[in-house]
C-alpha cells in the first residue's frame, strides 16, 4: 500500500492518504502534503516541533492538523520530514515533527500551499485500511 497519492483537480492540488489506522493516516496525509512543497528526500531532520491540533470531528481534526503544519511552514519556513504522533482522539492530536528550515537553494520550490480545505474532504474506513482525501488551496 502506498502512503499517499496525488489527486488531480483543476486549479488546486489534493492528496489521497492511506493508513493502517487513523494515526498512520494523519501521518501519511502530512507526508503527502510536504511532498507537494518539495522533494521529501531533500529534507533532513535537524530540529523538532511540538504540534497540537483540535477539531470537532476526525475530518475537522485532519484539516486543522495540516493547517497547523502549513502555518509553521509559511510563517517560519519549517518543513517537516519525520512525524511521531503521541496522542490522537477524534478531536485532538499531539505530535512531534522533525525537519529543518526551508532553503530554496537546497529544497527547490514546488507548490506554495495556502491552506488545507474542507472541499470534498473525507475520511473513510475500508476493510483493512483507512483512506482520506484532502484538497489544498494553492
Amino acid at each position, binding site marked *: 500500500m502506498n502512503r499517499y497519492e*496525488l489527486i488531480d*483537480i483543476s486549479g488546486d492540488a489534493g492528496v489521497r492518504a492511506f493508513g493502517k489506522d487513523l494515526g498512520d493516516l494523519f501521518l501519511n496525509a502530512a507526508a503527502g502534503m510536504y511532498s507537494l512543497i518539495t522533494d521529501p528526500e531533500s529534507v533532513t531532520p535537524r530540529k523538532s516541533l511540538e504540534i497540537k491540533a483540535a477539531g470537532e470531528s476526525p475530518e*475537522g481534526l485532519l484539516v486543522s492538523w495540516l*493547517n497547523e503544519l502549513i*502555518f509553521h511552514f509559511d*510563517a517560519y519556513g519549517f518543513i517537516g520530514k519525520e512525524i511521531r504522533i503521541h496522542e490522537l482522539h477524534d478531536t485532538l492530536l499531539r505530535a512531534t515533527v522533525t525537519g529543518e528550515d526551508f532553503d*530554496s537553494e537546497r529544497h527547490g*520550490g514546488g507548490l506554495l500551499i495556502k491552506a488545507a480545505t474542507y472541499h470534498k474532504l473525507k475520511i473513510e474506513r475500508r476493510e483493512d485500511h483507512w483512506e482520506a482525501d484532502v484538497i489544498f488551496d494553492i
Partner: protein
Amino acid sequence: MLPRIKDLVEVLYNEIPAGVGSKGKIRLGPDEERRLLTKGARWAVENGFGEEADIERIESGGMIEGADPSLISAKAYERGRAQQGTLGSGNHFLEIQYVDEIYDEGAANSLGLFEGQMTVMIHTGSRGFGHQVCTDFLEVMERAASKYRIELYDRELACAPFNSPEAQDYLGAMRCAANYAWANRQCIMHWTREALMKTLHSSPGALGLSLIYDVAHNIAKVEDHVVGGIRKKLVVHRKGATRAFPPGHPELPVIYRHTGQPVLIPGDMGRASFVLLGTEKAMQETFGSTCHGAGRVMSRHQAIRKAKGRSIWREMQDKGIIVRSAGRGTLAEEMSEAYKDISDVVDVVHKAGISKKVARLRPLGVVKG
C-alpha cells in the same frame, strides 16, 4: 527597450521576493502591522512606497473602511509579519508588457495608453496573512452554519447570515486582508518603479510611470444595486471576478468618473492581457462585475505531465518572452496551454457588454514565484 528586457527581468527578480519560502524586505512589528491592516496602500505611501497620486487610482483608495485588527489571530499576524512586499507563487506574477492593439482610441487616451507603450502588470494578494484569516474563520463559520441551520453542499462553503456576529467579525477581518493586499501591491509597484529607473537610468516622470488601476478580484463588498426596480444594499462577493463599475458611478475617482472603471484581465504568461472599462450593462446584469482571468483547462499535474521533457523557459524565449521563475514546477503549471485563450474569454465579456475592450497587452518579460 527590447534588448534591455533581460536585464530588467533579472533586476526585478532580485528586487522583488518571489516563490516558495521567500521572505520580504519588510519586517512588521505588531503595532506597524496593525497600522498597515487599517490603512492599506496608504500605509505603504506614508512609509515611502509610492506616491500620493497612486492612491486615487486604487479601488476604495487602497484602504477599505471597517477593517478591525483586533479580530486578527496571533497566527495571521505571524504569517503577515514577513510577507508584506512579496509576490508569492502559483499564478501570481509580475509582467513587463507592451500595448499591442488599441480597440477604443478615446478610452485608451483617457487611461493614458497608446500603441507600443510599455506597461507592467502585477498579480498578487494578501499572501499568507489572508489565507490564515480564511483558515481561522472557516472554523468559526462551520460552527455558525450549524448554529443557524444552514445546510451545506460542501463544507468549504460554510457561511453565516450577514448580520450575525460571526459574519460581522469575518468582514472586519477580511477587510484587514484586503488592506494587506493593497499595501502589498503598492510596495511591489514601488520597487518595480525603482528597478525600471535603475535599469533605464531615468526618472519616473521621464518614464511616465503612473498607476492605471489596482483592483481586487477576491473580495466581498457592501454596495448599492437596483434589484427589480428597487435600490438595495447588497453584499457582492467577487471571487474570480473583477469589479466593472460604469461611467458616473459615485465610487469611481474623479479621473475615471467619465470613462468608467478600468478593468484589468490577465491572460497566461505566453499570450496576452487586456485592459477594459466597466459598463452600465454590468450594473444591470452582473452586479457591476466581469471576469478576472482566463481560467485553467488543465490541472496543475496535467500541465506538469504535458511539459515533461520540454523547456518551457526556452519555448517562451523563442517567442520573445523572457521568463524568470523561482520554483521548478511553476513554469510547467503556468504554461500557455494550461489556460483557455484569454482573447476568447475577453471577447465573451465584451460581446455580452459587461465590460468593453480598450487595449491588448503582450508580455515581454515575466517574473513568476
